[in-house]
């Protein structure tokens, strides 16, 4: 046990102190900082230019009034006194960004043409079109003799409420409220991304670390000093803790930024406060199980290669697995009750994501969760057992091949 902690603390501290770790963490924090300040950054750059000024040439004063009322700060509309040609030459003199000519068609409906030196940006175009469309609809309605009251009633959204019921005796808990469901969706998102990130980043780190020890041939001394199984798990845990430290740092930074920026209570809008403690606990359980499952697989693969260059190649299937799990889970966010999600929540490599998704979004009987966790734990144990065997044989195996035959060879080496 002593040696387990020696390897564990060595792995942890060497990872934490490594340059790549420090640089990556710093980069991510910088990125978070940038992202959370994106508004003020855009403003800082944007304020140098004046907002777009567009001249409006029209004979129908009413259209200009209606448009003017509904434009935002970024866009200034100015009623132009003069002919279209005058306005166009002013555009060429860069007094305006463009000219918007609004005419009245034969049916008495608005038509518009935009003249400019540059293309109109999409947001502005969309806005102008929408406004004109509204004016047009109102005009048509008017012509058809429909009064304002009818119009308002027509546009009013229909009342649509959801109310959840639960059958009596069905697992006892009340169905999740809308807010809770929203919060849970948020949490599921977070866990999916975290697990995806953790598996890709730290799984690779584990495989790399082991492959490095093999390449430098220090492995033979290591495994003659302490048992391979304890070393493997010390490594998985050591890198896990280093990863956790990194994530906490990033989360801390992200949370700090959010709180700083949070003027309109966005944090409470996310609805995380509504999520039950149970869901949080499941989030942690599935995250940990998912990490262990993939980490064990990565350690096993890392012990098979003899050169660090081959790590990527062997890690490929693992990456594909986690990507597949991620895609299924992402799809499942919209339809958590679909058969694919249900089935995959009992398949070890997908379960950490999809089962948690179901737990978060639906009310599923406890036994299903228990079975899924049971399957996960069992497959971790099987992988650990197999991994330890392969690890023991694999670390003594040197050669360039990276095929599946190596599994057999490694197993043979560790056998009698």
């Amino acid at each position, binding site marked *: 046990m*002593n*040696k387990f902690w*020696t*390897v564990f603390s*060595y792995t942890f501290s*060497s990872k934490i102190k490594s340059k790549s770790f420090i640089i990556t963490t710093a980069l991510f924090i910088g990125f978070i900082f940038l992202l959370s300040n994106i508004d003020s950054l855009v403003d800082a750059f944007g304020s140098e230019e004046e907002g777009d000024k567009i001249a409006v040439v029209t004979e129908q004063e009413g259209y200009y009034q209606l448009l003017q009322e509904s434009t935002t700060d970024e866009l200034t509309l100015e009623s132009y006194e003069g002919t279209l040609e005058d306005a166009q030459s002013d555009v060429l003199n860069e007094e305006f960004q463009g000219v918007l000519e609004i005419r009245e068609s034969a049916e008495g409906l608005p038509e518009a043409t935009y003249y400019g030196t540059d293309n109109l940006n999409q947001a502005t175009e969309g806005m102008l079109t929408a406004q004109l469309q509204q004016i047009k609809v109102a005009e048509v309605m008017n012509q058809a003799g429909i009064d304002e009251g009818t119009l308002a009633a027509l546009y009013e959204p229909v009342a649509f409420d959801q109310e959840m019921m639960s059958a009596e005796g069905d697992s006892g808990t009340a169905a999740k409220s809308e807010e809770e469901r929203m919060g849970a969706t948020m949490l599921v998102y977070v866990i999916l991304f975290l697990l995806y990130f953790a598996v890709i980043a730290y799984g690779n780190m584990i495989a790399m670390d082991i492959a490095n*020890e093999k390449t*430098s*041939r*220090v*492995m*033979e*001394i*290591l*495994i*003659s*000093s*302490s*048992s391979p199984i304890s070393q493997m798990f010390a490594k998985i845990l050591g890198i896990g803790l280093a990863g956790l430290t990194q994530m906490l740092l990033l989360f801390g930074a992200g949370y700090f930024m959010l709180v700083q920026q949070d003027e309109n209570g966005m944090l409470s809008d996310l609805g995380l406060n509504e999520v039950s403690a149970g869901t949080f606990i499941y989030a942690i359980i599935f995250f940990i199980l998912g990490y262990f499952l993939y980490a064990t697989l990565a350690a096993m693969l890392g012990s098979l290669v003899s050169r660090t260059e081959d790590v990527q190649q062997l890690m490929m299937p693992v990456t594909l697995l986690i990507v597949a799990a991620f895609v299924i889970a992402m799809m499942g966010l919209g339809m958590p009750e679909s058969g694919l999600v249900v089935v995959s929540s009992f398949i070890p490599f997908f379960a950490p994501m999809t089962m948690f998704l179901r737990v978060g979004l639906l009310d599923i009987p406890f036994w299903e969760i228990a079975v899924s966790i049971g399957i996960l734990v069992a497959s971790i144990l099987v992988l650990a057992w197999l991994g330890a065997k392969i690890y*023991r*044989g694999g670390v*003594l195996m040197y050669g360039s091949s990276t095929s599946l035959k190596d599994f057999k060879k490694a197993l*043979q*080496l*560790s*056998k*009698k």
Partner: protein
Amino acid sequence: MTLKLENVTKQFGSFTAVDHLSLEIPDHTIFGFLGANGAGKTTTFRMILNLIDQTSGTITWNDQKIDYSRTDEIGYLPEERGLYPKLKVKDQLIYLGKLRGMQKQQAEAELITWLDRLKVPHYLDKKVEELSKGNQQKIQFISAVIHKPKLLILDEPFSGLDPVNVELLKEAVVDLKESGTSIVFSSHRMEHVEELCQHLCMMQHGRPILDGNLREIKRSFGKKNLAIEADFDLGFVEKIPGVVKVKYLQDSILCQIENEAVSQTVLQEITGKGFIRKFQLDEPSLNDIFIEKAGESYE
């Protein structure tokens, strides 16, 4: 604290790396393991260290199986040298020492003594990758002995070192033996084995072709070496019965003779033929024995 191998066999698939090897390695001695490349030396070491399991047979040390509960008493210098390239010598040795059950302070004190002893104290804070191969090897040697093992296994400890450093390490090995460590080491350099070992085992194709006490091995070999230097042509010596082989050197010959008595026949034959500068009877060298034994089992 005897290390005992009984009928140990290791098969990799259909290939037999070690074939029914039985050995008894006595306590407080230096035991030499000889053999050409691929003779099964490293595989045997790995089995002793429990890195791989033997296909059949038993290995015991002090009547007990060697497992991970006893690794603190064992030191190992693998043939494939390897350390963490990016780690400083000091951190490296402390980590490896701790893996052998040492306390940090203890390891620190020991490593300084050893670095001094091997005349490389200034490498304490250097990264391993900055050191030369030979110096890396010294660091690796320290990692094998820093925890004062009772059983020390050295796989080709002297390969790649210059003569001065070979002497340095040899002295260290002898001192370790004096202080009670049992040492098993492999080499294909006969003179190292001859100089250091009391007992030895010669391996070929996984089978021991010779093992036991060095002096007895030499005595039971029977054949002796005879060096003659004279001013006249010594070609006829080859035809004297009892002379096995003759090797012609610059102005002398080196004969292998069946036994001591033959030397006297040779002496009589050459007396009176001219001036004899040298006539010397020697024990056979381990090299001679190895070549002969290895050759025999080829046939």
